[in-house]
């Protein structure tokens, strides 16, 4: 199956705004077939100007229209200010007839030039779905102000509201553009990720000839050449060459890693100083980088912190505003006159635009997800941040999570007359043909040292191996394995460790102590979590001895061993039942049930596919020191979203109060509307600067 075919099985592209990448509301989602969809008129303007969605000619025309509209609008407002010096309402009737006609002549094209985006969008929105959005509110307000002024000019008497109409159009157009531009910067972490992918790869044929092919055409098994300074086009294994590889953009790890034949490398990383030949393991949409991009997209489209609250309030907000506007108009018509009533109603409509409320939480979550991706932490949905902030308990799996998940040689015991090197070299020779984890650990410990000839290899699963070894020119029978397999050996058991013994010609030569060591950063990470008031508990399927050894290394941490997957699940469920929102960190298939029931499921990049599938968070590179940072980011995100919401509701509430009572001019309503959503954007951007985990420079 080609990559293109595989792509057809991926979920359909998520309905996101073509400019800023925020999810579209349900109404706009249904119009996707009409070309790029935008969440607001500001995004439509900004996207076309930046050359997206339309040719350059259209962008120029749009800019000229906005610019000319602005020129006319500024003149209308300036002349109006000068005419109505003092601001008294009675003065609005003053001015020579020709001046009023001149103002109208300037304002009419400006209304058409600046107002048409709001009019068409607002009316279409209303006509198609009966929905009233902010564009409808603006269109209604501007048309009312213009219509009343037109009537005044034609009748030769009455107030003019052309400056108000112009001001609203100008401020809202500019404000929307600035807002959209800032928002796109906040959410373009995804674009930054996608840019890490090269367009072409250099594929090596069987004859060693090199050809340039598009990355989309790569398949598993292809051999590629990567030169210094190039980005890797696919995930794979190095089969030739050595180089330092910078993973800064993928895992957030700032130190380059040295790689040699056998090293697994990821697409998008950068070969710094050497040329490599690698064999493709995963290409196209399967690479770690592509998965990251998909996860960040999912995080955008997924739920956001506090979303239900916002939905509930927003659902009743717009109808309420219209009732309030009608009431305001009625009240002020009776109390004063139509002119005052119109101005106050206009203020109500403008100040009530729930832009800021709608932006408050998605922006915080999207920005945080982008920031997390920068540090090599993939977050599946915005709600994860809220759950992280509520979390009080963290469960850890042991093997592969707190530990590296691979055995390493920690000690060699030798018989009199043998050296450590002898024992290691002989053991490595015996294990040459085995893929058992113990065999790999022994071979890795022996390194490149020349090994004696070995023949007649036999493996006894669970016990050890036997073979004939060439020792000083004689073939001698040798055994490597458990004490039962090898025969009489001196007692050198260590709790929680794996010990294998070597006997040659029936004589004990030495013993190797192997252990699955803790990740070096694990103790500090666990301490940092407990320092944040989180209860940390280790749930392990391993034997009691191994867990006891772990407890020694992690003092004060509760650890339970010999837990079946169901038992792990029970522990997590008990915590959920107790009202907690527990986090579970695991990597194995046996952790999957517990992960899928945890409040926050966290796995490592090295985790099994199943664990990654059910997890909310994936830590690339498996660096546990990202965990405390992630909890901090969760707190900060929730705090930011809450502050955004508080501000937005406060602004709308106070503004509405002022508008209804006739204390807010529509112009200030328009300025306030734009300012409030800009404030939300800028406040959310603080998350994009949230300090990365210690030691990172990205």
């Amino acid at each position: 199956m080609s990559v293109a075919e595989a792509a057809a099985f991926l979920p359909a592209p998520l309905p996101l705004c073509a400019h800023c990448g925020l999810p579209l509301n349900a109404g706009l989602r249904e119009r996707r077939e009409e070309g790029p969809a935008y969440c607001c008129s500001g995004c439509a303007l900004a996207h076309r100007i930046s050359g997206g969605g339309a040719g350059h000619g259209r962008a120029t025309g749009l800019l000229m229209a906005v610019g000319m509209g602005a020129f006319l609008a500024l003149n209308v407002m300036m002349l109006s200010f000068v005419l109505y010096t003092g601001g008294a309402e009675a003065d609005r009737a003053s001015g020579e007839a020709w001046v009023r006609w001149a103002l109208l002549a300037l304002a009419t094209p400006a209304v058409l030039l600046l107002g048409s985006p709001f009019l068409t969008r607002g009316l279409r929105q209303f006509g198609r779905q009966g929905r009233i959005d902010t564009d409808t509110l603006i269109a209604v307000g501007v048309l009312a102000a213009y219509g009343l002024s037109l009537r005044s000019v034609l009748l030769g008497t009455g107030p003019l509201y052309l400056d108000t109409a112009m001001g609203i159009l100008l401020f809202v157009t500019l404000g929307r553009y600035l807002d959209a531009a800032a928002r796109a910067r906040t959410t373009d972490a995804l674009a930054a990720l996608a840019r890490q992918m090269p367009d072409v790869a250099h594929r090596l044929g069987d004859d060693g000839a090199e050809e340039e092919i598009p990355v989309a055409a790569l398949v598993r098994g292809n051999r590629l050449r990567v030169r210094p300074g190039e980005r890797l086009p696919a995930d794979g294994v190095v089969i030739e060459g050595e180089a330092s590889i910078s993973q800064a953009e993928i895992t957030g790890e700032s130190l380059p890693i040295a790689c040699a034949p056998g090293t697994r490398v990821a697409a998008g990383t950068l070969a710094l100083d050497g040329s490599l030949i690698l064999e493709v393991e995963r290409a196209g949409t399967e690479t770690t980088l592509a998965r990251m991009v998909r996860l960040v997209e999912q995080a955008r489209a997924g739920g956001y912190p506090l979303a239900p609250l916002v939905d509930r309030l927003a659902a009743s907000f717009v109808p309420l505003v219209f009732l309030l506007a009608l009431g305001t108009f009625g009240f002020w018509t009776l109390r004063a006159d139509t002119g005052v009533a119109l101005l106050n109603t206009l203020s109500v409509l403008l100040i009530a635009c729930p832009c800021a409320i709608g932006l408050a939480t998605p922006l915080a979550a999207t920005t945080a997800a982008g920031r997390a991706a920068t540090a090599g932490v993939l977050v599946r949905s915005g709600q994860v941040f809220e759950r992280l902030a509520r979390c009080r308990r963290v469960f850890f799996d042991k093997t592969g999570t707190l530990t590296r998940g691979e055995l390493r040689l920690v000690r060699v015991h030798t018989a009199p007359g043998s050296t450590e090197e002898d024992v290691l070299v002989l053991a490595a020779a015996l294990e040459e043909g085995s893929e058992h984890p113990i065999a790999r650990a022994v071979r890795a410990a022996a390194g490149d040292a020349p090994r004696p000839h070995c023949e007649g290899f036999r493996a006894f699963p669970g016990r050890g191996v036997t073979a004939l070894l060439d020792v000083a020119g004689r073939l001698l029978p040798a055994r490597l394995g458990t004490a039962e397999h090898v025969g009489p050996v001196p007692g050198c058991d260590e709790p929680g460790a794996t010990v294998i013994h070597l006997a040659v010609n029936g004589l004990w030569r030495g013993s190797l102590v192997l252990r699955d060591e803790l990740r070096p950063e694990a103790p500090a990470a666990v301490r940092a979590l407990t320092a944040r008031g989180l209860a940390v508990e280790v749930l392990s399927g391993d034997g009691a001895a191994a867990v006891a050894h772990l407890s020694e290394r992690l003092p004060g941490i509760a650890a339970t061993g010999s837990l079946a997957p169901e038992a792990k699940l029970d522990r997590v469920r008990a915590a959920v039942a107790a009202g907690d929102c527990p986090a579970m960190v695991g990597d194995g298939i046996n952790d999957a049930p517990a992960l899928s029931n945890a409040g926050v499921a966290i796995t490592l990049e090295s985790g099994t596919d199943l664990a990654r599938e059910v997890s909310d968070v994936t830590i690339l590179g498996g660096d546990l020191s990202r965990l405390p940072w992630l909890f901090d980011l969760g707190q900060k995100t929730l705090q930011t979203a809450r502050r955004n919401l508080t501000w937005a509701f406060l602004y709308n509430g106070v503004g509405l109060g002022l508008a209804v009572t006739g204390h807010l001019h529509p112009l200030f309503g328009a300025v306030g509307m734009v300012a409030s959503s800009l404030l939300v954007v800028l406040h959310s951007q603080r998350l994009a600067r949230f300090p990365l985990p210690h030691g990172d420079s990205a």
Partner: protein
Amino acid sequence: MSYPGWLVAAGLTAAASVHCAGMCGGFAVALAVRDRQRRLRLAGNQILLHLGKATTYAFLGALAGLLGGALVHSTALTWTGRLLAILAAVVLALAGLTLLGLRSSRPSAWTIRLAAVWQRFLGPLLQERPAGSSLVIGLVLGTLPCPLVYAGLAAAAATGSPAQGAAILAGVALGTIPALAAAALVGVTLSEGARRGLARAGGVLLLAMAVVTLVRAVGHEHGGMAGHAGHAMPAAGAGAGCGPGGHQQMH
């Protein structure tokens, strides 16, 4: 002796406008470079550019005048106008100090960011330059932060009149024309030393104006009332309105 406020503003700005070469000058020269071979088009585009800039300035001036007037009217305190005049003096002094090099004259991070936003906004226009685009570019250019504009706006607010405010800022726009046009049309750019010398001279002038404004604002017996702000504001209204306010004698 009486001068209209816009004339004072234009003169002061012209004296201090070597400063403009840094921010707006780059734009003006960039626009002119393409048209070097076609004199008529070059002149037309420069006129549109300055018209656009003057429109933004004058609008801001009218707005400042309106807000200043509203403040004086609404507070009904005799010292509000005086306070505005003192504020104008302070802003004038700060602008003068900037030109003298005593305050950092490097554009702030905020200014640079705004310029970048505008540059992105204008991108297609700057590339394709359709007829009339110079007007739009001028409009946008008028929003760039500039100490001379700040000083003008403070003075405009102190007049309390949209008409006088618009006139003062139009004067500021007028005052920037010689330096910018010289750079754009003739390609004349002064040596670093000459520019610094002229900027210092402009700075001294602005400081002197600030002192005069301050003395008038503080010393005037019954100054500071709305409508009489011109009395306290030699630098701004220069004691003489140029709009409907008519001409008043400067004390």
